[in-house]
């Protein structure tokens, strides 16, 4: 007898993670499947902007209203993933200052606090802003860490009984007649195949959901839109900086943790390239040129890496041309739409509205399964964001950077990071302050199995040097935990290669020097090239 789930959710991005949490909280027997690691797709490749909705206010009131509602919700339920920085929409001499009025009116109409401030005041609030600005509007933008948010959702789903399979890829959708009854997956690491049965399958595969729907026999026309971004070495700005004009390329600069990022470009991409995206020199040049208009300092700031994400643009139903694009959330009941019972697709939307998307999908699932439970994801805090009574250590006691940084990353759950002795307090990643204890916590509690997992759960290797010393240290700890030195060495080689992919598009100046130093250490001193698996390159 196969174990049967109530619902299988495909896709370990934020939508799938949020849906898994919602389903599990409503008592459904839930399984989440992801072919790589959590957040490996578009979720881990965006701005990390906690939109106030202001960006959409003029063009799309509905999205704007959704954004500001979810914005306020996330500040409450995901405190440890959110930075309440506020944002500025600045007008530059080349922009039309008249647009500011329209902008503010639209914001207020959508329920977004928007207040015009004096340029001098804007410079005082955010000293990095382009001093040539002619106007500024302050809005409740912020920053959100998509890795932390996704992991917290998945972790909470697990606490509510959900199961999670990462590195498992759906190879076919099981059907009995027209009804979808489960999935067949392949374990991407052991190459073993498994059949998993459920009463419902929810497709939360983002752009890859296009292919998943096809497996189920449904057509969801999605058009990949590529957006490239650059990560800078430190926080140049402490408030989000946007341009007060119609949305365009490279007009958002977001501070996030220890860095800041500028984005995005926007271009359509052939579907067959979504797994192999390259950031082109032209895109880098454009991002730098436009970025420096928001904060001139960017022109001289070290760039750590470049990356691109792919947004799924969903054609308004049954428009194969893609000319008519739906901007909002798309929740498809394939039973009523295509005559395929047991199959739901949740797509469209954005990082900001993931919880609402999850709520819609779960509402539909509950309806299908005859479960009458209310959504509580907007009220109950995510693990790490719970109110705690534990007070800070007395000020006389010295707190290391690693401990403070971990508090920021894991919120109230950081008390579960166990420091038994001095060795546990030792830093693995010095740029981001990740200790041995935090690495062990990520391995034992957050399911990290390789260095990329660790990076997404702790920020290890995300700092200035992009893993130059910490990757090897972490690899040694993983090798101890998983008992296979060869596998860990190969993992280290592939991690360094993954870091390089983001570095070389911006490898000049310090970034090139760092790359050379890293190569000396890993290839020269260590001989890590012996563990490179060419096919992954």
């Amino acid at each position, binding site marked *: 007898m196969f174990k049967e789930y109530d619902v299988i959710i495909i896709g370990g991005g934020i939508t799938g993670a949020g849906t898994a949490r919602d389903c599990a909280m409503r008592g459904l027997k839930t399984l989440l499947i992801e072919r790589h690691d959590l957040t490996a797709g578009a979720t881990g490749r965006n701005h990390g902007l906690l939109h106030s909705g202001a960006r959409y206010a003029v063009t799309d009131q509905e999205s704007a209203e959704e954004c500001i509602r979810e914005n306020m919700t996330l500040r409450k339920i995901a405190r440890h993933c959110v930075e309440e920085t506020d944002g500025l929409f600045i007008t530059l001499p080349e922009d039309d200052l008249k647009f500011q009025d329209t902008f503010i009116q639209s914001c207020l109409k959508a329920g977004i606090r928007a207040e015009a401030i004096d340029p001098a005041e804007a410079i005082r609030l955010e000293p990095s802003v382009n001093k040539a600005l002619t106007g500024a509007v302050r809005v409740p933008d912020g920053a959100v860490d998509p890795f932390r948010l996704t992991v917290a959702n998945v972790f909470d789903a697990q606490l509510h009984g959900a199961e999670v399979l990462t590195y498992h890829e759906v190879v076919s959708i099981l059907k009995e007649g027209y009804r979808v009854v489960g999935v067949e997956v392949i374990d991407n690491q052991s190459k073993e195949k498994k059949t998993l049965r459920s009463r419902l399958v929810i497709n939360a595969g983002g752009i890859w959901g296009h292919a998943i729907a096809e497996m189920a026999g449904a057509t969801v026309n999605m058009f990949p839109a590529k957006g490239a971004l650059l990560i800078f070495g430190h926080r140049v700005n402490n408030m989000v900086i946007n341009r007060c004009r119609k949305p365009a390329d490279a007009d958002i600069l977001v501070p996030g943790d220890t860095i800041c990022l500028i984005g995005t470009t926007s271009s359509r991409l052939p579907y067959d390239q979504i797994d192999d995206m390259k950031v082109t020199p032209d895109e880098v040049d454009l991002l730098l040129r436009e970025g420096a208009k928001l904060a001139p300092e960017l022109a001289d700031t070290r760039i750590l890496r470049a990356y691109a994400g792919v947004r799924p643009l969903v054609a308004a139903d049954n428009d194969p041309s893609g000319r008519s694009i739906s901007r909002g959330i798309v929740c498809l009941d394939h039973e009523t739409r295509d005559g395929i019972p047991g199959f739901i697709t949740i797509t469209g939307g954005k990082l900001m509205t993931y919880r609402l998307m999850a709520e819609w999908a779960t509402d539909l699932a509950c309806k299908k399964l005859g479960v009458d439970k209310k959504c509580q994801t907007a009220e109950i805090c995510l693990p790490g964001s719970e109110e705690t009574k534990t007070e800070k250590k007395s000020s006389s006691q010295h707190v290391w950077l690693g401990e403070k940084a971990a508090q920021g990353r894991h919120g109230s759950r950081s008390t579960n990071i166990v420091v038994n002795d001095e060795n546990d307090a030792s830093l693995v990643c010095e740029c981001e302050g990740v200790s041995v204890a935090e690495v062990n916590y990520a391995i034992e509690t957050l399911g990290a199995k390789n260095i990329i997992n660790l990076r997404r759960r702790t920020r290890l290797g995300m700092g200035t040097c992009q893993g130059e010393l910490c990757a090897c240290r972490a690899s040694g700890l993983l090798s101890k935990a998983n008992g296979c030195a060869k596998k860990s060495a190969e993992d280290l080689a592939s991690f360094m290669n993954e870091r390089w992919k983001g570095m070389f598009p911006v490898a000049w100046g310090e970034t090139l*020097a760092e790359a050379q130093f890293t190569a000396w250490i890993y290839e020269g001193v260590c001989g890590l090239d012996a563990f490179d698996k060419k096919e992954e390159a």
Partner: protein
Amino acid sequence: MSKNKIDTSFEQCMKCTVCTVYCPVVAVNPDYPGPKQAGPDGERYRLKNPLFYDETLDLCLNCKRCEVACPSNVKIGDIIQSARLKYGTHKPKLRDYILANTDVMGSLATTMAPVVNFTLGLKPVKSVMDAVLAVDHHRTFPKYAGQKFETWFKRHALKKQDTYNNKVSYFHGCYANYNHPKLAKDFVKIMNAIGYGVNLLEKEKCCGVALISNGFKDQAQKQAELNLSSIRKAVARGEKVLTTSSTCTFTMRDEYEHILGLDNADVRDSINLATKFIYELVDAGEIVLKFKEDYVKRIAYHTPCHMEKLGWALYSTSLVRMIPGVNFMMLDSQCCGIAGTYGFKKEHYQDSQKIGEGLFKQIIDSQLDMVATDCETCKWQIEMSTGVPVENPISIIADALDVEATVKANQK
């Protein structure tokens, strides 16, 4: 760099950890996060949130040996000092005020020198200072002279200076003025012998190094501006401004800009250590030094941290080596542990002595008549810890100089 701009040299950090190899504090005190973590690593977090500032940055000696070692030109020491001034929440203590205001204390003390010296040497006074002010009781306080150098200069030397065609200005600093006027007198003696007249600056305040390290940034800025304005007037007269202390020199040349955010580019090259100025004249063949034949000594040179940072030990050692009777030895360049007022503080005393251990051993083992060094606080530390007398190279040159022959040789 302007007063408000943040120094982003931390971006150049390659995370190679070379700085930590040369940090004297890390080696003795595990509470100190080390230059890389306290400097470039920590700075990224402090930019995110000032709460990431860590009071253990006070353990930094500001020796700048991390900067000297850094292959990537990261201003590690400057980043740490600036962070202390910007984020430090410790209120400076009365003790810090007393230690920092070397010139105020100096003028008070000089007038009452015998009493002060006597009192500072008394055991009960030392224990009161230890208990109340947290100045470690092991410390020997530098003695105060009965007559300031400035007073002496005006009474006994000023008139004569007009007889020279070449002129230099002298920034004597607190130590030469209040504690050890002999050094300043030696300087005047040499300069006059080689045909240079000496002017004092119109106004001179303490260079401010102790104010910076004790957290009195505003006062340091005021004094720095006053000094710069006096220096500018001297430079406008076509005079170089010479000093006899490596730390004052370093502070005015580099810290004024890097830590206090003052633009000194117009006069930076004119602020010189006397040994550099004199050596370059000799090197260029413009002057000749004649030495006494009976001056025979074994002398080793200790490179003060700020001298290492300036990179000028070359000049002082080359001068001392010119003395025919000197058997010269170069000590390994390492911190003596005093770091200005740092080692005076009770909480740092142990570390301070431990840092200097290797140096003291090398000095004691080397059978020396004397140690030469360009820094007054290194002098106190080494004398206290080894019993070997320590002199500024200028005093050594002055003692070894055959003044008559030198004057003659330089008359054209």
